[in-house]
């Protein structure tokens, strides 16, 4: 814990978990989609469902999808902004059997037709955890530069990624590997201490067996 976790973050109220955390979930989800959101189905669970409207959780999630950070003055008017930009938003009740009390599932479709299904948890003080991407379990905060690689479950992809990072002098803070089943689709989530240069990301996208590369520089306050 740093002193600026105590005094801070700067945020739009009323709740660090139900508002600031929700903005971050929306923000990270839209960055994971990697393009402008065109349609969003948002399913709320637990306390998000019960008290979300009073806490502006709906506005916060949509604000995040629009690229806003938790301290953006425009969060309160995000639903109107989305409507003006012709972004279709639908809210519903989550059918997740069991989840963290403050959970939202976002199913997003982008302008060029890309889709992603993200489950995000607001774990307190505005901090979040991304718990699932496209049905595969994950566990990362989105606070530091994060690289997410979808690849075929074949030998060698981890070393391709880590070699690229070493070459770019990027230090790995944490690394997680998940797969749907042996030989199926795998996801690598790499949290880094430094930002990854764009040419490194571009190189990865051309590696055989790599299906999708998503990178974002970390969502600051």
């Amino acid at each position: 814990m740093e002193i600026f976790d105590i005094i801070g973050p700067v945020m739009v109220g009323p709740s660090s978990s139900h508002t600031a955390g929700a903005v971050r979930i929306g923000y990270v989800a839209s960055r994971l989609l990697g393009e402008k959101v065109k349609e969003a189905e948002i399913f709320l669970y637990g306390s998000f469902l019960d008290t979300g409207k009073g806490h502006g959780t709906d506005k916060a999630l949509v604000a995040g999808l629009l690229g806003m950070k938790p301290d953006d003055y425009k969060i309160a008017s995000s639903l109107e902004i989305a409507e003006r930009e012709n972004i279709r938003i639908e809210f519903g009740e989550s059918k997740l059997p069991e989840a963290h009390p403050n959970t939202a599932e976002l199913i997003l479709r982008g302008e060029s037709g890309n889709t992603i299904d993200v489950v995000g948890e607001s774990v307190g003080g505005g901090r979040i955890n991304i718990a699932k991407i496209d049905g595969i379990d994950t566990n990362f905060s989105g606070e530091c530069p994060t690289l997410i690689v979808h690849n075929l479950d074949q030998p060698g992809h981890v070393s391709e990624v880590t070699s690229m990072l070493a070459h770019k002098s990027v230090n790995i803070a944490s690394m997680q590997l998940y797969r749907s089943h042996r030989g199926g689709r795998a996801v690598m989530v790499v949290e880094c201490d430094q930002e990854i240069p764009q040419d490194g990301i571009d190189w990865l996208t051309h590696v055989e067996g790599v299906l999708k590369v998503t990178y974002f520089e970390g969502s600051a306050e």
Partner: protein
Amino acid sequence: MYSSIAEILEQSGNNKKTFWEVVMEADMESRDVSREESRQKMEQLLDVMRDADQSYEGELKSASGLSGGDGKLLEAYNQAGKNLCGYFMGKVMERAIKMGESNACMKRIVAAPTAGSCGVIPAVLLSYEEYRNVPKDELINAMYVAAGIGKVIGESASIAGASGGCQAEIGTASAMAAGALAYLQGGGSEEIANAMALALKNMLGLACDPVGGLVEVPCVKRNSHGAVNAVASAQIALAGVKSAISPDDVIDSMRRIGSEMPVSLKETGKGGLATSESAKRICECTAGGFCFGK
């Protein structure tokens, strides 16, 4: 580096440093930043607090309709010359409620330590600045004092209502503000520690029982009470009164009370004020206002 109030006192005693220097130097070390970078960040937070204070809108209502406009009433009462408890304290109360309302109305604030308790520290610091015209550097030092206290509480106990009840939120904010005010008023590390301990002791056991689960009732008004408690505790400590229970023991007591507290009183909206007849009536009146799909 420090992990208790006793360690801050030890380091400030041996090296003849002030409380805030110990906290600031630990931040520089922990985040690997320069003195200027650390202070700039703290200054930015102070500036946001001031902006939030000055941009209060008395006409705003929260989404639920439960909050808004009370800060304006306090301001009018202060301006009418009816102030019962002196100019400084009157402004502290007014500012704390205004900030709590701004938070409820989705305006920009600094969580300190949480959004629900965001009014306590700026109310005390900004009112003192106005009252005594202290230089900005002193206010930034005071924010380090507050942050160090909050960090110890956050690491040794909790700053989340969901795990420790309201004592962890308004209680922590009040303890942080008490220490900061004791510093501004000329207190040394011992007085800061005593002010912090006295403030937190008086908040022990405070339940987190918000109506409808929203950060509004009783949170907004509790900011004012937490701020008043901070001022009272600072004055008592500065007069030389000592807390019989050491600051770290008070913090540990808060942790134990928090873990023994039933879940119904920890931000679930399922006990205390939240299940009172008045609360039920409020929820009926605003039915559908809080939640989706019900």
